[in-house]
């Protein structure tokens, strides 16, 4: 296995199947370090460069760095619109690059993390850019499935909700296309999976688009839920029609296999009933913990502390 030291992580597609598996394997190993404090990354500094608010992702990266004994500097700034100033991503990255060993960037626009990676000498990790990419989320989703189901091959995985605009769903389904899985895409007609992703994925694995969750709920191993935002609908009656049909309730869980799992990238609004949280299938909070482990492992690999 070639070293991952110094590598950028901008898109999940930048990594081979073998490399992804390697990161997940290392995540298993690093788990014990999350309990006992480690100084694996002592003396290393990570910059958090967030151009849009995201408490969850920021704290996850910060904690991952600190658990391994590293330091973080937070360059997130509340952005004020200034016509003279505008925004100069290039200069900011050039400056920060002098101070730190790794940069985590989050920016509302697609392509910005790629641009930062081209400029910076140090490795850059994409903490979410635009509507397209959130690679560490895809990694932690894969890891969650692998840990909870003990395998990825052979599973039936259903995505439900807004499949058109949810970037986590895009990254994860692209990553899953490398395994032997069956995928269901369940969404209201106007929020169907983006065509280019559907084409890519269906060339590699078995894919079916379904309107009603009830048709497949009994056979799935993994149910991946995303939020449907009402702003996506131009007519209130369209929204009202679909609103209830994509909400996960105890009735759904009862029909599910006992060993099936429910995942969600969070934050949740009301697409999963709170009563579901108590069921053994609910894994979305555990997913957050796995996210911390995956980010620890990724930082350790990229900074060369683990080979």
């Amino acid at each position: 296995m070639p070293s991952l030291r110094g590598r950028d992580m901008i898109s999940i597609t930048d990594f081979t199947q073998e490399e992804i598996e390697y990161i997940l394997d290392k995540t298993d190993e690093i788990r014990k370090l999350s309990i006992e404090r480690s100084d694996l990354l002592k003396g290393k500094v990570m910059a958090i460069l967030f151009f849009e608010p995201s408490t969850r992702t920021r704290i996850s990266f910060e904690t991952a760095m600190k658990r391994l004994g590293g330091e973080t500097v937070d360059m997130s700034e509340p952005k004020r619109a200034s016509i003279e100033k505008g925004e100069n991503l290039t200069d900011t990255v050039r400056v920060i690059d002098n101070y730190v060993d790794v940069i985590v960037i989050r920016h509302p626009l697609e392509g910005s993390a790629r641009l930062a990676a081209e400029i910076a000498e140090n490795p850059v990790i994409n903490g979410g850019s635009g509507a397209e990419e959130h690679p560490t989320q895809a990694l932690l989703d894969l890891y969650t499935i692998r840990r909870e189901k003990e395998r990825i091959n052979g599973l039936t995985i259903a995505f439900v909700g807004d499949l058109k605009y949810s970037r986590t769903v895009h990254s994860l389904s692209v990553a899953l296309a490398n395994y032997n899985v069956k995928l269901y895409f369940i969404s209201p007609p106007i929020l169907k999976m983006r065509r280019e992703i559907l084409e890519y994925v269906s060339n590699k694995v078995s894919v079916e688009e379904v309107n009603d969750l009830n048709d497949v709920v009994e056979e799935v191993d993994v149910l991946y839920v995303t939020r449907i935002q009402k702003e996506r609908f131009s007519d209130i009656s369209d929204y009202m029609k679909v609103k209830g049909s994509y909400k996960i309730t105890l009735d759904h869980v009862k029909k599910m296999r006992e060993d099936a799992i429910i995942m969600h990238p969070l934050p949740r609004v009301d697409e999963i009933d709170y009563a579901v949280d108590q069921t053994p299938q609910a894994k979305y909070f555990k997913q957050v913990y796995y996210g911390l482990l995956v980010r620890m492992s990724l930082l350790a690999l990229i900074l060369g502390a683990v080979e």
Partner: protein
Amino acid sequence: MKSLRLRNCKIFYRGSVISDVEILIEDGKIARLTKLKINRPVDEIIDLNGLLVIPGLIDVHVHLRGLNLAYKEDYDTGTLAAAFGGFSTVLDMPNTDPATENVETFKLKVEAAKPKIYVNVGFYSFIPEKLTEIHRLIAEGVFGFKVFMHRVMPGYKFNDLEDLRKPFETIGETGLPVLVHAEKRETYETVKQENPNGSLEAFEAALSESSENESVNGLIAMLRKIKPVKLHFCHISSQLPLRRIAEAKAEGLSITCEVTPHHLLLSKRSYETLGIYGLVDPPLRSEACVEGLWAGIRRSMVDCIASDHAPHTFEEKSTGNVWNIKTGFPGLETLLPLMLDCVNRGWLSLSKLVKLTSQNPARIFRIAGRGSIEIGYWADLTVVDLNGEFTIDPSKFKSKAMHSPFKGWRGRGVVKGIFVNGAPVVLDGELSGRSGIGRILKPGV
């Protein structure tokens, strides 16, 4: 699927100005916003040369006229004026001929406007005479119900606030707003009777600051007692009512308000140069009032800036006495340049301007998928040159009302183009679209 790639854009996005962005538009909606080069083949590429792209403006207070008043303005000229002024959506007032007061007159407007419009249009109605008609109007897509407190208008008749309780509560249940022109009918009628020949002083007394304030206070007091209804105060012109509105909002009442550029930039002193042409309802106020409105904008007490575009012929605005002369000004083609100049002067920030002219209007009037630059939203985009110099020249207006109280005003901030539903209607200051690109809108979620 029709696709359009805009390159070399500077965009106003989630509170920031971001440069070197490409925008991909597919089927009228924003499909991609990216710092990268869009490589896939598209039907058309437009280079915006680094100009600033902001969300298409939404004017919540426009009189498009049309029908029997088409000599003042029609749907094509009014929406062309909107497009050249940077507005991708306008909401039209019901005091037309015939007036919009029931389903029949509502449909008449929709049908007349549909083939002629260059930007998106939504319609308000008067409160219908028969209150049961309210729900039918909502099914047709009405955006709200307009009430003039000081004049007897078509539709539902009322003498006092108590008469308004029933219709307000009925509308309140539907979630749509009531739009109010706040004045006192008694004061207006009395002053008018006592001064039949009229004078500027009488006009100001009939439509005074205290009338506006008392009317606002009365309505707020009423809102506390009745079932909830959304109230939008049109063209607030002085600071006291603004303060009352802010307090009532803090109490939890569902109230919003707008101000106009003419109340922000002109004052009583403007009568010296404008003469009776300067009459507008509510009238131009003291400089203290103007200061108060700007303070209101700085303190976020104002929700929208609207033009109150009120086209009349120049003759109608310059002959007769103050009681029969036509009041108001065309404003669609002057609002954005004037306000961009204020941004350049530092009187308000660009993000506040965008909030007051697109984000808030879309939220308050439930215009779904518009009012912001977001993936999945309609590509309603206004292109501006913040440094470009302008001189207001009414002889170049697209509106039939080729006059303006701002004639000859100079400043910086020019509208260069507009995209409506993803189609370029104005490019580089020239007409590039055709009528019918605009859509008749209905309120969303």
